[in-house]
């Protein structure tokens, strides 16, 4: 039996954010490409969005008073976990369609799993968040699964 994960905590599995619809612009693509040191002309010109541009497009635009003293905003999708120190995380991304300036994309995030494992120096909590990004036709454009570890 799990020692850290209460039924109440586990009941958050399946929780979903409301869809977030954003416009892809040439300017934002160019800024992202420059900031990441990209060397490919089509991205530096903003003709097409590079891989992982969606990370910037769908980062929460929070207001100043929503930030904690360390500058981080609370992720409303996540429950309060009994462990709080964040360790390495992992990402799995599928690129299904190219992204161009002028595209409207909609992202929906879902908390898909919470589980516990015994680590070398104590218990670890894992959680997974899926982000589905689709176009206005409802077709999947990018699928991302994030796994985070707390200790």
């Amino acid at each position: 039996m799990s020692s850290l994960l209460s039924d109440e905590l586990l009941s958050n599995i399946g929780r979903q954010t409301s869809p977030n619809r954003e416009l892809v612009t040439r300017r934002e693509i160019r800024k992202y490409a420059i900031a990441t040191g990209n060397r490919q002309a089509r991205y530096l010109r903003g003709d097409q969005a590079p891989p992982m541009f969606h990370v910037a497009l769908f980062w929460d635009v929070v207001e100043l008073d929503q930030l904690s003293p360390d500058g981080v905003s609370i992720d409303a999708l996540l429950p309060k976990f009994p462990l709080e120190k964040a360790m390495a995380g992992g990402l799995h991304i599928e690129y299904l369609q190219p992204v161009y300036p002028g595209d409207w994309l909609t992202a929906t995030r879902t908390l898909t799993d919470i589980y516990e494992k015994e680590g070398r120096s104590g218990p670890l909590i894992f959680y997974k968040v899926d982000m589905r990004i689709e176009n206005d036709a409802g077709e999947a454009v990018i699928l991302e699964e994030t796994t985070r570890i707390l200790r």
Partner: protein
Amino acid sequence: MMEQTQPGAARLESIRPGDALPDRELKPDNVQLFFYNAVLWNAHRIHFDAPYATEVEGYPGLVIAGPMIGDWLNQAVEEWLGEDGDLIAIEYSNRAASYIGETLVSGGSVTSVDHATGELVLEVFVKNEAGEIIAPGVARARWSTR
């Protein structure tokens, strides 16, 4: 299907498991890190507030953003593919932190190649100055018929 006369097809034929992707040296400075977090709208102080990062959080310096390191894995694959193929999936993890002032190296190698379908699996990495892999990844790519 691709025709043998296309340069991309000829290149695919020559690819073997174990082939190396070119290494790339990365020397992110605090201006680049600032730009990256600004374009995200990420105000996490460990990335721009040096006294906070060192004195409050106990880091040796400003922490390089994890997803920016992940982005370099994507770039390693795409630069190697050039116009010949598309990155279709990647998975990676941020195994250890790194700090402004460090020189990192991205690279990788071909794990498998299917010459009939044009499907490739690649192993990619970002290493720190000590040569430790701080971000390992696996990418899938597909040769295009362009």
